[in-house]
């Protein structure tokens, strides 16, 4: 991560505005015409907005992270059924009927499985088609997760830049006040 100039970076990513890096606080304040307090509240508001987006992205990330193992489990089951196909043996499986209550199922050799697609819809597929579909879903989920993680990293960078900017504007303001306070005293000392 080594872009040498701030202008080389993105100004926004997927709807998230980038936080502009300030080279010099004094120049920034005079150019934008803001007094320190307004600048501080602007940046703090930005920070809040970033936090809101971060919550949303984290929730999406948790969803995806739960979905991926689910798809992998389905793939495993289909693979097991396919492996059994040639042997002619039935597969005995104990499955949960309700919490703590299990029942036994006898699954004969089969060419097709039913996949739950969501929204109260279930479709029957051949084992091969099911494997292909599930693999696709898994790839998509993993790709979405990658994009999401990159979004979160970008967002966190903007949060960090904004936090540093707030600290710098605040420090600059404190320093300015101290200088202003010191100057009348110096003039009084010179007079006396």
């Amino acid at each position, binding site marked *: *991560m*080594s*872009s*040498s*100039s*701030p202008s080389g970076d993105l100004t926004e990513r997927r709807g998230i505005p980038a936080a502009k*890096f300030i*080279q*010099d606080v004094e120049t920034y304040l005079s150019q934008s015409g803001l007094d320190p307090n307004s600048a501080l509240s602007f940046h703090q508001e930005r920070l809040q907005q970033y936090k809101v987006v971060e919550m949303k992205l984290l929730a999406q990330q948790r969803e995806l992270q739960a979905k991926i193992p689910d798809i992998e*489990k*389905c793939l*495993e*089951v289909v693979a*097991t059924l396919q492996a059994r196909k040639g042997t002619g043996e039935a*597969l*005995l*499986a*104990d*499955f*949960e009927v309700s919490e703590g209550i*299990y029942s036994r*199922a006898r699954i004969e050799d089969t060419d097709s499985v039913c996949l739950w697609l969501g929204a109260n819809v279930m479709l029957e597929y051949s084992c091969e088609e099911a494997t292909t579909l599930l693999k696709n879903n898994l790839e998509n989920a993993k790709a979405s997760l990658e994009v999401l993680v990159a979004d979160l*990293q970008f967002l*966190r*960078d903007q949060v*960090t*830049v904004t*936090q*540093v900017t707030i*600290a*710098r504007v*605040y*420090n*600059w303001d*404190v*320093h300015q006040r*101290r200088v202003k306070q010191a100057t009348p005293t110096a003039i009084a000392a010179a007079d006396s």
Partner: protein
Amino acid sequence: MQQQGSSSSSGSGMEVTWEDQQNINTFSRLNNRFHDLDDEIKSAKEKCDNLEDAGNELILADEEMIRFQIGEVFAHVPRDEVETRIEEMKEATCKSLEKLEEEKESIVSQMAELKKVLYAKFKDSINLEED
């Protein structure tokens, strides 16, 4: 990680360059990844332990057909196949655990480097410790 306003004279000339900002950003990213890794390592260790226990249980059990969890159901699987499957799962989990530990080590050393650089420039004006 916070950057505190300093009440000493460093509030005056403490310029933050783009390079400093990038270092701070990198440190923040590494710190986040470090915490995520900690969680991942914990769950990988747990999985490894569970597989170890399962392997031991298998040796003690004397049934021919073991109920082995595939997906959401427990399929009746012959003992040998269960043994093979558990071995495979154990190997995969242990390998990924190793990789995670390696990544964690590398991140810890990268963070130590960055801490040195940032503390050198900012001394008391910056706080890079866990709160």
